[in-house]
């Protein structure tokens, strides 16, 4: 019991030493998801979270007509990828995402990068980049 407590304290101290993770949030075209996933896998990134979202940047939407009722649809379907990587890998990962998600047309999406304060694996409470 007490050994376990000691281990926890050590881990959390270590994670405070290394505040060196980045969260990469990429909003991409839904049809590029497979390409991005493949590209990330090929550089050894295998954890990520995906959500189906809707949004728009400077891209214009499209018109839909239902029996004469016109709707300007400007919130378009997008996919949001969230992944957290150790700081030293972030540049490479970001470049991989950008390259694989690009079609060169308007509406390709954006990538945002955040500092991550802490990461905890729920199963065993690993912390820091060891939890990634």
């Amino acid at each position: 019991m007490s050994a376990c407590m000691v281990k926890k304290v050590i881990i959390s101290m270590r994670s405070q030493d290394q505040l060196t993770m980045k969260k990469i949030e990429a909003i991409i075209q839904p049809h590029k998801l497979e390409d991005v996933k493949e590209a990330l896998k090929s550089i050894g990134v295998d954890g990520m979270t995906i959500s189906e979202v809707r949004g728009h940047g400077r891209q214009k939407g499209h018109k839909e007509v239902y029996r004469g009722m016109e709707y300007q649809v400007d919130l378009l379907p997008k996919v949001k990828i969230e992944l957290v990587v150790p700081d030293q890998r972030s540049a490479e990962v970001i470049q991989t995402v950008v390259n694989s998600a690009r079609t060169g047309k308007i509406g390709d999406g954006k990538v945002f990068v955040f500092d991550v304060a802490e990461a905890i694996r729920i199963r065993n409470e690993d912390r820091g980049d060891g939890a990634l």
Partner: protein
Amino acid sequence: MPQRLWLALFVPMLALAQAAPPTAETRIANLETAVKSAQSAGDNAWMLVSAALVLMMTGPGLALFYGGLVRRKNVLGTMMHSFVLMALVTVIWAIVGYSLAFGEGMPILGDLRYLFLNGVGSAPNPDYAGTIPQQTFMVYQLMFAIITPALISGAFAERMKFSAMLLFTTLWMFVVYFPLAHMVWGKGGLLNAFLGGKIPCFDFAGGTVVHISSGVSALICALYLGRRQGYGIESMKPHNIVISVIGACLLWVGWFGFNAGSALGASSLATSAFVATHFATAAAVLGWMLAEWIRNGKPSVLGAISGAVAGLVAITPASGFVKPFPALLIGFLAGIVCFLMVTVVKSRFSYDDSLDAFGVHGIGGTLGALLTGVFATSAVNDGLKDSSGKVLPLGLVDGQAGQVLNQAIAVLISWGFAIVGTLIVLKICDVVLGVRVSKEDELEGLDVSMHGEEGYNFDA
């Protein structure tokens, strides 16, 4: 002794000869009975199938068609409008509805001779259909009575109280449907061309009784209830056009029962009506699609299926009177006219007929009823005869220009009945129950606020 022997041989032989070959009269009588029962079996089989097909138009046909066109929060409420009428109208029909529509009574309403279906059994009613049990005729006509008020529900979808809708339909059947059905199809009805009506109108399967009555009543409902909350501001896109496509296809198939079944037998007239129905529908799909393509730049699926329904509606009164090519023309025109109605005219007047019950059924029905007067021909339907049995000409193509006027009068009477009747019934419902749901209930959606459930529980 030999004489006796001779007699003893002869007498049994004589008896045998008498028993074996029946007289010619008996054989003919037997044959007649057999032929009659064979025809009755054939006609009855087709009419029972037709009755089932027409029920299928309401559920699932119309329920899916309308259900897909509303927003997700109202899908059950909208489907329930169709489904519950399969039950409610049936009970009213059994108690008194059939009698008021088809009992021989005054020119505008039947009497109570068939109250509680009294006397409606296996014997045919030769006034209506001489080769099928009257019970088959009764249940077939019931299916028409079910779908008519269900069609109206497209106009008040997404905002009418369920209780008010039940009361509305019940009263509407008595004030509008039973009188109109009696006038056009009942013996002695004012507009019945075939059974002694003063103003002979041709309405084979219900252009006036079903489609004008429901479509015009729908417009009155839309105007009376007012627009949905957020109409023109927030999105009211159909939530699932996929199920609407399935519904429209079921309507198309079910309509063969509706129109070809209206021949009331498995006759060549049924075939003719079947063909006319199919041809008109096909042409209407193309008519709507073309008009939309030219005007909006894209041919939508919703447009194509709406065109199909418009064509089915327009050919309904004409189906048993016109040849295939006029049917194509009627359908094509209906596709274009109804498209203009639900796009240009509706947006100009800005009334909220949620699912276009008026634009499709009211206008398509009116167009069809008028064109029936133009294209009806005795070459297709020789049912109209003078007292000497001579077949009479029918429409303008037969040289009877006056028939177009008769049709127009019938259309006006149907419009008048529908407008006045629906206004009275709505007013009563409004005073007794209130017709419209509260703003909160409407925003929440009728599925939860009226029925306490949701159509799609993806997390369940």
